[in-house]
């Protein structure tokens, strides 16, 4: 009896302490809803970007450092009549958002490295079945459990090649809280337009960092939704080879009664072993991306016009790189920054141009060379171009002075 008494009384001070915290949280959300300028986290910006893009279905599983996205959507989605569900694991989460999308939802899940690894088979399923959905991966240090609250960019290649087999990939990579909001909207828009699973990569620091942001009025937010078929059901092809491989998509319960399978399938969606039909499907998946590169690739070019040295960096590292550019320019060194907002498909053309124009390329990254290997792939034909690699995987960030020092050492 005594034991029960102590356990009962023990959590009391805890609840007292957490009550005001919850209130501040709700006040903060209210300020965001009213579109005031607030100090907002990257994860919060992702959640509100999702809502503004029309996301009405979230299934997820708690994992640091992405959990705030789930927590906010658990508060906001019921208010707007959308669905929030906490699933039993990340595998179930990707499956549930894919199922919901087939029923017509705009769906999203958020996770981090370990959960992202678990989701890979489901991501492949969404891609082969051309089902729109978005996976947000707030990256942390790996492999395995790694350092859950520390920053890394170790999932860049996994976000491209994580699922077995050849498949298309659209992966976006923001570098500020405001861009978290914008690229979440873009991720959902692209998933709807291209009928695929789009991945949004965040750095841990970006997920938790706060910056002053005022969300735009909804009138200024461009939202894209999937094209619905206009043909009668018996004419409907679930994978119609429409212009530029962007074909209409029916939802379950609308009279189209289509079949969806993870097996290699024909245009109607039925499984096939015919070599010609299998080749058609694979080509369709590939061309959907390659025919639309201009629409998909976004890059930021900063002081590149007269640059002889270029820094190529993404996410939070690009923020440090931008400062390094300013510092170097003050010293008279002609440095510029090229930053991919779309990391996959890789901005090959922009990088090739950069390699033509500069003598030295600096690639700072929080991994063991996942970005620089892409630069090396493109640098082949210009052996006189110098590549300086700055790599760090100990959970610490790369600072502007780190970049500047290594750059000076290298040139």
């Amino acid at each position: 009896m005594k034991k029960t008494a102590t356990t009962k009384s023990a959590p009391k001070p805890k609840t007292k302490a957490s009550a005001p915290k919850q209130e501040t949280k709700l006040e903060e959300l209210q300020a965001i809803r009213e579109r005031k300028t607030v100090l907002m986290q990257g994860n919060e910006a992702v959640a509100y970007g999702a809502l503004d893009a029309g996301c009405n279905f979230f299934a997820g599983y708690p994992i640091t450092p992405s959990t705030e996205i789930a927590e906010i959507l658990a508060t906001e989605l019921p208010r707007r009549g959308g669905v929030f569900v906490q699933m039993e694991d990340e595998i179930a989460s990707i499956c549930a958002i894919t199922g919901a999308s087939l029923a017509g939802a705009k769906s999203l899940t958020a996770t981090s490295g370990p959960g992202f690894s678990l989701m890979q088979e489901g991501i492949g399923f969404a891609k082969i079945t051309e089902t729109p959905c978005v996976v947000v991966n707030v990256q942390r240090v790996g492999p395995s459990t790694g350092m859950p609250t520390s920053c890394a960019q170790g999932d860049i290649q996994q976000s491209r090649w994580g699922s077995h087999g050849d498949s298309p990939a659209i992966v976006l990579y923001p570098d500020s809280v405001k861009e978290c909001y914008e690229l979440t909207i873009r991720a959902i828009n692209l998933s709807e337009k291209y009928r695929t699973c789009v991945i949004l990569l965040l750095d841990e620091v970006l997920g938790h960092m706060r910056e002053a942001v005022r969300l735009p009025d909804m009138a200024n937010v461009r939202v894209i939704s999937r094209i619905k078929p206009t043909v009668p059901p018996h004419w409907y092809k679930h994978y119609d080879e429409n212009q530029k491989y962007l074909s209409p998509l029916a939802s379950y319960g609308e009279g189209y009664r289509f079949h969806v399978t993870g097996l290699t399938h024909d245009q109607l969606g039925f499984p096939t072993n015919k070599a010609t039909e299998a080749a058609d499907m694979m080509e369709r998946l590939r061309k959907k991306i390659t025919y639309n590169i201009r629409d998909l690739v976004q890059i930021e070019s900063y002081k590149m016009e007269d640059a002889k040295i270029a820094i190529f960096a993404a996410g939070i590292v690009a923020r440090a790189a931008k400062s390094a550019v300013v510092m170097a320019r003050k010293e008279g060194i002609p440095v510029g920054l090229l930053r991919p907002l779309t990391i996959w498909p890789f901005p090959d053309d922009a990088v090739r141009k950069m390699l033509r124009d500069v003598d030295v390329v600096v690639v700072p990254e929080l991994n063991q060379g996942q970005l620089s290997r892409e630069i090396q792939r493109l640098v082949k034909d210009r052996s006189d171009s110098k590549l300086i690699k700055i790599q760090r995987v100990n959970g610490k960030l790369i600072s502007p002075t780190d970049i500047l020092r290594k750059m000076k050492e290298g040139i």
Partner: protein
Amino acid sequence: MATIPQRIIHEYLRHDKKFPHVWCAGCSNGIVLGSIIRALAGMDIDRDDIVMVSGIGCSSRMPVYVDFNTLHTLHGRSIAYATGVKLHKPHLKVIVITGDGDCTAIGGNHLIHAARRNIDLTVILINNNIYGMTGGQCSPTTPHEAIATTAPYGNIEPDFNVCELAMGAGASYVARTTAFHTQETQNMVKEAIEHPGFSLIEVVSACPVIFGRLNKKGGAPQMMKDMRDNSVPLAAVEKLPPDKLEGKIIRGVLRKELRPEFCAQYADLVKRVQAKGGEA
């Protein structure tokens, strides 16, 4: 051309490019499909409102043959996909076709949590006691000491009682029958679809080509006879002495109770939150 008599099931099958089906001669899956179709034909549901979801395995090939909204998913994940479909459009009738390996091995986690949530899915688990599609490996329902290609000296593991598992996890409708008892299967499918909550029907089935051959069960007709002779209806169980129940399949509705259903609970939550000032 021969005239084939049109039966009710033909109306529900997809006619182009889906046949011949993948199932072996003597397989129970087609018989169970017949029962499911007859159950649905006897109900007043628009086929546009039926979604049939499956995972991977012999039984999971079923959706491609039927003219509903169909979704053939990943191994073990059918219930998770079905959860997404159902939550977004709760008016749809979502039927999950799964097997013993798909549902209780790789998909066991999704089974127990869907049962716990009591989400209104109808799970039809066709239990052939083996992995048929990959050629006869032992599954969580392969009987103790039975032979499988991955248990060549006999299975040393105990097997799952699938219905007990579902009931333990909180399923609100649980029934067991066999592929031999087609009318009973049909009745249970109807009852399970009408039941507002998570329902699971275990249909014990025969895999004569693989399980039967490995365990010398004497071919398809003999296995059908065995299902008839080795099963006991629930009503008769109390009247029989325990030794007569040894190794018998107990058929019947093992649980049918009303519990709050997940989609309805969620709809209530939305109403409650919106009444407090959420956006419409």
